[in-house]
């Protein structure tokens, strides 16, 4: 009788243990799934975070490249102004009046014709420092049409070009009468490249 009881108890115990084991197994499977869900969540968050960072970087890059182009344009315009200023006030070409102040907005045509042939050998260094890549031409309109190239240094390829014009009086003393110089007019065309 006692051994029968013990057998029954053992069986019941085994059944309980089996139940516990199966419950534990289920719980383990459930917690594994939860971890998987956690991991997927983390990956998704990281993915979204990196997408946002990537978007930010690409927007910033785009903004930077646009502002860089704008900056380049501004620089080119500033250089155009500088080059025009330097060309207009070039002491080599100005209409001098002895030690007095030179005539404003005036170029001596005789000097202008000699500028390029005489100083060509310095166009790659000295005058390049002054004008960089540029094409500076003096165009006489009156009394006759005459184009006097002053400085030509055009790059083989360029992205941008800025052209400015400046009206000038043109003095030619060899054309005057009785010591009075002859005056014509024209314009200075300054093209700068980048």
């Amino acid at each position: 009788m006692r051994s029968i009881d013990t057998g029954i108890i053992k069986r019941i115990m085994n059944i309980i243990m089996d139940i516990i084991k199966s419950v534990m197994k289920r719980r383990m499977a459930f917690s594994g799934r939860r971890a998987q869900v956690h991991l997927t969540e983390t990956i998704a968050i990281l993915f979204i975070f990196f997408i946002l960072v990537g978007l930010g970087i690409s927007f910033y890059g785009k903004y930077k490249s646009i502002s860089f182009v704008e900056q380049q344009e501004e620089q080119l315009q500033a250089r155009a102004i500088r080059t025009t200023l330097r060309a207009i006030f070039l002491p080599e070409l100005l209409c001098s009046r002895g030690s007095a102040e030179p005539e404003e907005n005036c170029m001596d045509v005789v000097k202008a014709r000699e500028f390029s042939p005489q100083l060509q050998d310095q166009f790659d260094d000295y005058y390049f420092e002054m004008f960089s890549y540029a094409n500076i031409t003096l165009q006489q309109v009156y009394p006759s049409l005459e184009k006097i190239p002053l400085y030509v240094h055009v790059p083989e390829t360029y992205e941008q070009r800025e052209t400015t014009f400046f009206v000038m009086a043109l003095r030619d003393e060899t054309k005057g009468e009785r010591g009075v110089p002859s005056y014509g007019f024209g314009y200075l065309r300054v093209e700068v490249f980048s």
Partner: protein
Amino acid sequence: MADKKGQVEVTINWVYVLIAGGIILLFFIGVIVKQKTASEEGLAIDVVRVIENIFVGAGVSEKTKNFIDTSGISEFTLYFDCLEGVGEYGLQGKSANVQNIIDPLFSSSTIHSPKLITWSVPYLLPFKVTDFLYVTAPNIKYYLYGQDDLIEELEREGQEFGNIIVLDGQNSYMGIDPQGNDQIRVVDISGTLVKDGFAVPEKLLSLADEKVTALVLQGESALFFQKEAGRWHLLNSIPVPIVSLGGARDAAKLGAVFSTSPEQYQCNMGKAFHRLKNIAIIQLARVERLAEYYDLLNPEGFCTNLISHADKNAKDTLDMMIKLLDACALVPEDCDYQDYQKLIPLSQEVEKTNEVLKVNCIALY
């Protein structure tokens, strides 16, 4: 068991969040630091570019005085240098700078001021060579002493600047007070106040050595001094000649007044001599065209003679000028700065010929 596991999980989660957050924070801090450095460099580039534009504008227009508000960059120090014919200026401690081999710019080695003063004066030898640009500031005080046209002129012209003071004697010289100014420069025409080894006025001892400088102009040469251990120290053992034709607004002399070092002065004058060579080449070419013109009109005439046949005619004088400048440009080692003094008699000759020519012929310049 489950509780302990939960606790560990929560702790790991927090550690993970902290590490990830820290990394993200570091990333953004890095980006901000990088951006700060980049924007500072960008600002320095912008400032230098703006200054360059201002200097070009001020330099090409004759006899102009400009007052530039630099209060936005007053915490920075501007530096000016010139070495072997290359001028350089920019903000101290920043990589952005401007190098220039064309325009002569005379100034102190450094300027730390919320305002800049620029003044351009044409350099004539005898025709216009270029415009000299002088850069100074209200907190650089110039004390002038002596009886000379230059002193009177500087006093008159400098009234607008507000930084030029004329000394009336030894006592006022000894009493010079920096009064919070950044730099002090003494210009002595008499040659009695400043000599090598003479004591520097007592109140100036508080300033750094490079902030106290002096110039002695004697005849047509200049001596540059700097304070060293409380005494004046001569910077150039050989006097630097002033290559000019004198007269009012002597640009070369004014250059010496505004330059604090003999090297910077000679370097900037070197730029002017390079330009002079080019202008003399154009002038010679023009004279040749004038000679052709007069040869057709009257080959034996007065104008033809002065231009190309007479003793010391315009063509020969200009040619000699070019040869002298060419020799110095080709072999600078063999050409002493003193050699440029030979330009003075040649320029005077051109000036004389021009005076005669302009009465009845076409002037040279």
